[in-house]
């Protein structure tokens, strides 16, 4: 079982490195969205500093959403999702592996690039560190929830909007806690509380979401 888990992860990573654009594109999308805010809002430094953490969290959420579109769609169309469902290994584990791979490929690079983006909002250095911690604690929950949404809409071709609709309400709590904590960090306060909460949400998602994902995939295939 553990072996199957590793196997799926390594295949997903292999595919991502094959098409290295898959690795880079969510990051670039994230950067561009972050860039849109200052351009649209204007160059008032105080305002930019104020909205910075929130804007970066929104951009991370949207980048995750965008990359979720194709998480199972392609597998559905080419029949590999059928093959996974017919595999000897528990579907839950296989899909969890896909989700973890998605997190590694999408969210990690995104967190890594955050310091650069904070330059655009003129955030203070301690804020950057806190922001990265909140992202690290919160994005696993995003990926796991997103995977349920992606599984539910795997067979639908026009799903991008639908996934957004399904997921955004669920992910709003994560966004709120994340942005608040990042805000606290930027003003130099302790963020231990919200950070634990975010981590808790992620752990909760980890225990529940994989089962929902597997069930959703079986429904999509029927």
């Amino acid at each position, binding site marked *: 079982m553990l072996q199957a888990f590793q196997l799926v992860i390594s295949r997903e990573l292999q595919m991502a490195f094959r098409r*290295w*654009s898959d690795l880079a594109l969510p990051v*670039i999308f994230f950067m561009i969205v972050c*860039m849109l805010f*200052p*351009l649209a809002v204007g*160059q008032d430094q105080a305002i930019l500093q104020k909205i910075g953490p929130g804007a970066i969290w929104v951009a991370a959420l949207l980048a995750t959403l965008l990359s979720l579109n194709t998480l199972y769609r392609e597998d559905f169309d080419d029949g590999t999702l059928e093959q996974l469902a017919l595999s000897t290994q528990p579907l839950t584990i296989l899909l969890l592996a896909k989700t973890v791979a998605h997190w590694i490929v999408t969210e990690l690079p995104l967190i890594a690039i955050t310091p650069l983006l904070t*330059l*655009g909002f003129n955030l203070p250095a301690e804020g950057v560190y806190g922001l990265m911690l909140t992202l690290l604690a919160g994005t696993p929950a995003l990926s796991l929830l997103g995977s349920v949404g992606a599984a539910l809409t795997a067979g639908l071709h026009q799903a991008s909007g639908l996934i957004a609709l399904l997921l955004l309400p669920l992910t709003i709590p994560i966004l709120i806690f994340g942005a608040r904590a990042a805000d606290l960090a930027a003003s130099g306060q302790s963020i231990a509380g919200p950070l634990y909460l975010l981590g808790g949400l992620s752990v909760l998602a980890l225990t529940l979401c994989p089962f929902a994902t597997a069930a959703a995939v079986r429904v999509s295939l029927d």
Partner: protein
Amino acid sequence: MWNWFHKLASPPHFYRIASAFEPWLLWLAIACMLTGAYGGLVLAPADHVQGDGFRIIYVHVPAAFLSMFSYALMAVASGIGLIWRMKLAFSVAAATAPVGAAFTFLALVTGAIWGQPMWGSYWEWDPRLTSELILLFLFLGYIFLRQALAETRQADRASGILALVGVVNLPIIHYSVEWWNSIHQGPSLIKLEAPSITTDMLWPLLAMIIGYQLLFLAILMTSVRTQVLQREQNARWITEQLGTENIHG
């Protein structure tokens, strides 16, 4: 004229010419850049406002200039390729993109480093800086589109269309400083009246620009040659060419 053009555009011919010119270009470039660097870093007086900090201009301005130049080159080459179906033009466009992206990146980084002492922050959402950043994304888009389309023929034409559509951005970058009140330096060299900096600072800058330009051409020659080799790997002239090179070397 047309004859000459067509002859140059034939891959074997170009390959031979490029191989011959390349070392010259490279040495000239190094010579120009050394002169420029000596003139700029040692001979030129310190600026009375910026002190020695201004010397980063000798990296920044040539890089910024080349970034725009290479986009223009890429677009023109793509246009020629699309209209006359000339493979060499596509090779040139494809080879320009990464080099152009690198210069754009260099301009951004040096600009940002310069910005810290000048404006007190690394980055401002100023029209010129923004449009230079957009230029970087245009290059990246071009590069990513090419790599996503595995088939060369398709990649050539698709990325060519993209390059042409993106050309709209160039005038915006150049004129952004005049159209909007920008905190960035106004044009001091590339304008119709006499340049507005002292000759002590000017000539090293010009030398640097020319040096960068030559370096750019040298890099371009190498990567176009690689492109040509890749595309024509099955053609007969390649084996002949490489054969003779082996004999000589």
